[in-house]
C-alpha cells in the first residue's frame, strides 16, 4: 500500500514535467546553429538511437508471436504480413503506390498500408542498414511543431514513390517526449479512418487518465524505443514488453473490498470500460463510390463509447481460425478472466479450395470498384496461382483498454440483476449459479448502506 502510494505519487510528479516543454531540450542551441540533417543530427548527442529503432515493432510491423494458434514459430507476424478483415490487406499486398486512374475523372492518388510507418518508403518496413537509419522520421514522434503538409507521398525524379517528411529546423527545435497527438497521427487512423478500429477517442471527456493530463507514453513507457503493449487478441506484434492496469494500481486498488474481491475473475477493463465503439462491420466485397469518384470499402461506423462490449473469458491465448480471431479461455481453466471486447465483423473473399481468407490490393477497387481485380493483384504478389474466391464473413474480437471511467464504472446492480451487463449463462455459470448471481441478495445490504451514506 505504501509502495503503491509512492509509485502513484511518482507517476503524478512525472506528469508535471512531461508535456511539451520543447524549449528546454538541451540540444536546441546546437540544432539551431547547424540545422537539422535528419537522424544524424540527433545521433551527435544520442548515439545508437536510430539503430535501436530499426529493431522495434514500429519499424518492422512484425515480431515473434507466441500466444496465437496456428503460427509458424520461426516466422515473425504483424501488420506487415497479417491478413484479416479489419484491413484485408497489409504492407506487402498494399504497398504504397499510385492507383490506376479513375475512368470518370482521369485522376489517380496514392494509397498503401505502409504510410503508417516512420520511414520514407525507399527505406521501408523492416529495412536495415545505414540508409534505413538515416531515413527514420524521428520528428513525427518527437516534434510538437511538425508540418503535416510535408508528410505526404510523392514521386521522385526516378519515378519512385517516396513518403515525405518534415525535416525543417523549426520542427527539430520543438523536440520533446511524444505527446498523445504524435502517437495519434497513426493510431487514430488505425483500420483506415478516424476512430475506425475501436473508437479510440482519447480525450478528457472520455478517459480519466487523459483528464489528468496523462499521455500515451506515461503508460506505454518505452525502453530503448521498445513500447509495452497488452494482449489485444488482434494486435499480435509486440516488443516483448507488457503494460497492465495493475502495474500502477495493484490488484486491489479499491477502498471497498467488495470490488477488490472481483479482480480475481474480472479484468479491470470489464467494470471500468463499460462502452466501446468504432466500426461494427465492413464489406470488402462491396466498395462505395465517394464524391471524388474513388471507391472505399462499405463501412458501418459507430461513435466512440456508443456500443456495448461483448464479455468473454480470456486466458491471453488467441484462437485463430479463418472465420474467427479472438480470445481463448473458459471459466474453469484456472487462468482466464472475464474481459470486455469490441466485436467486429468483416466480409471479404475466402479461397474455396483452402478455406483461407484471401487478401486484397486496394489500388484496383479504389480506382474502379473492381474488387476481384484487387484479389487477383494480391494473389499475384503472394504467388498464389490456384484459388477460387468466395465471399464470407469473419468475426474479430478487439481488446478494449482505453476510455477508462470511474464515474460510469459498472456497479453491483448493473451486473447482479436479470438481464444485467454480463450474460452469466453464456459465460458458463449453471442455472443454479445464475439464479444466485442475479438475486439482489448479492448486493442489497451493501447498496442500502451506500444510499444512506450518499443521501
Amino acid at each position: 500500500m505504501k509502495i503503491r502510494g509512492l509509485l502513484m505519487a511518482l507517476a503524478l510528479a512525472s506528469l508535471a514535467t512531461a508535456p511539451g516543454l520543447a524549449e528546454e531540450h538541451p540540444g536546441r542551441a546546437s540544432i539551431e546553429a547547424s540545422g537539422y540533417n535528419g537522424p544524424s543530427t540527433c545521433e551527435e548527442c544520442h548515439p545508437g538511437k536510430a539503430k535501436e529503432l530499426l529493431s522495434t515493432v514500429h519499424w518492422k510491423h512484425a515480431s515473434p508471436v507466441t500466444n496465437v494458434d496456428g503460427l509458424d514459430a520461426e516466422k515473425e507476424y504483424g501488420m506487415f504480413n497479417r491478413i484479416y478483415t479489419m484491413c484485408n490487406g497489409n504492407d506487402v499486398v498494399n504497398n504504397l503506390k499510385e492507383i490506376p486512374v479513375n475512368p470518370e475523372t482521369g485522376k489517380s492518388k496514392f494509397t498503401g498500408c505502409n504510410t503508417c510507418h516512420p520511414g520514407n518508403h525507399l527505406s521501408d518496413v523492416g529495412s536495415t542498414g545505414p540508409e534505413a537509419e538515416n531515413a527514420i522520421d524521428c520528428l513525427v514522434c518527437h516534434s510538437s511543431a511538425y508540418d503535416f503538409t510535408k508528410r505526404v507521398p510523392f514521386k521522385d525524379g526516378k519515378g519512385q514513390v517516396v513518403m515525405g517528411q518534415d525535416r525543417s529546423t523549426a520542427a527539430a527545435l520543438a523536440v520533446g517526449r511524444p505527446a498523445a497527438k504524435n502517437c495519434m497521427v497513426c493510431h487514430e487512423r488505425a483500420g483506415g479512418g478516424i476512430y475506425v478500429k475501436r473508437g479510440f477517442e482519447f480525450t478528457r471527456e472520455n478517459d480519466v487518465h487523459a483528464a489528468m493530463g496523462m499521455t500515451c507514453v506515461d503508460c506505454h513507457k518505452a525502453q530503448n524505443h521498445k513500447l509495452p503493449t497488452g494482449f489485444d487478441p488482434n494486435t499480435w506484434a509486440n516488443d516483448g514488453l507488457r503494460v497492465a492496469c495493475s502495474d500502477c494500481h495493484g490488484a486491489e486498488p479499491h477502498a471497498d473490498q467488495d470490488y477488490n474481491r472481483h479482480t480475481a475473475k474480472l479484468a479491470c477493463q470489464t467494470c471500468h470500460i463499460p462502452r466501446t465503439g468504432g466500426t461494427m462491420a465492413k464489406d470488402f466485397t462491396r466498395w462505395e463510390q465517394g464524391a471524388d469518384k474513388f471507391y472505399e470499402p462499405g463501412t458501418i461506423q459507430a461513435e466512440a463509447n456508443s456500443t456495448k462490449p461483448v464479455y468473454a473469458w480470456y486466458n491471453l491465448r488467441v484462437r485463430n481460425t479463418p472465420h474467427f480471431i479472438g480470445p481463448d479461455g473458459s471459466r474453469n481453466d484456472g487462468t482466464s478472466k472475464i474481459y470486455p471486447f469490441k466485436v467486429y465483423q468483416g466480409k471479404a473473399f475466402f479461397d474455396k479450395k483452402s478455406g483461407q481468407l484471401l487478401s486484397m490490393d486496394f489500388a484496383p477497387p479504389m480506382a474502379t470498384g473492381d474488387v476481384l481485380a484487387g484479389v487477383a493483384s494480391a494473389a499475384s504478389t503472394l504467388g498464389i496461382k490456384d484459388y477460387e474466391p468466395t465471399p464470407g464473413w469473419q468475426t474479430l474480437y478487439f481488446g478494449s483498454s482505453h476510455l477508462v471511467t470511474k464515474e460510469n464504472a459498472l456497479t453491483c446492480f448493473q451486473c447482479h440483476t436479470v438481464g444485467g451487463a454480463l450474460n452469466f449463462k453464456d459465460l458458463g455459470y449453471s442455472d443454479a449459479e445464475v439464479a444466485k448471481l442475479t438475486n439482489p441478495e448479492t448486493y442489497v445490504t451493501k447498496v442500502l448502506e451506500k444510499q444512506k451514506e450518499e443521501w
Partner: protein
Amino acid sequence: MKKRTLVLAVATLFAVCAFSMTVLAQSAEMKLVGVITKIKIAGPAATTATAILKDTKTEKLVEIVINDELTLDKFKDHRIVEGDEIRCKYKSVDGKNVSNYFRKTAGC
C-alpha cells in the same frame, strides 16, 4: 360559435407549428459530407476558425465555425487541409453553423 372555435383551433395549431419549427431550427443537428474549399484561422494561438465546405449532395457552400481544440490543432499543423473531404455535424447558434463533429472521411 362553431366558426370561432374552428378559427381558434386553426390559430392554435398554427402557433404550435410555428413554435415547434423555431425550436427545431435552433436545436436540430445538421449533417453534411463536403470538401473544404477554404480554411480561415488566425495563427497558432487561435481558439476559433472557420471552414467553408462544399456540400457534396447540394453543391452549396456552407460556412462552419470550429471551436474544438483537437480540430483546431489539426488545422494548425495541417493534418486537415483545403481539399480534404469532411464528415461534419453542426448546429445553428446565433445564426452561425457551429461544428460539433468534423472528421476526414477516408484514412487509408
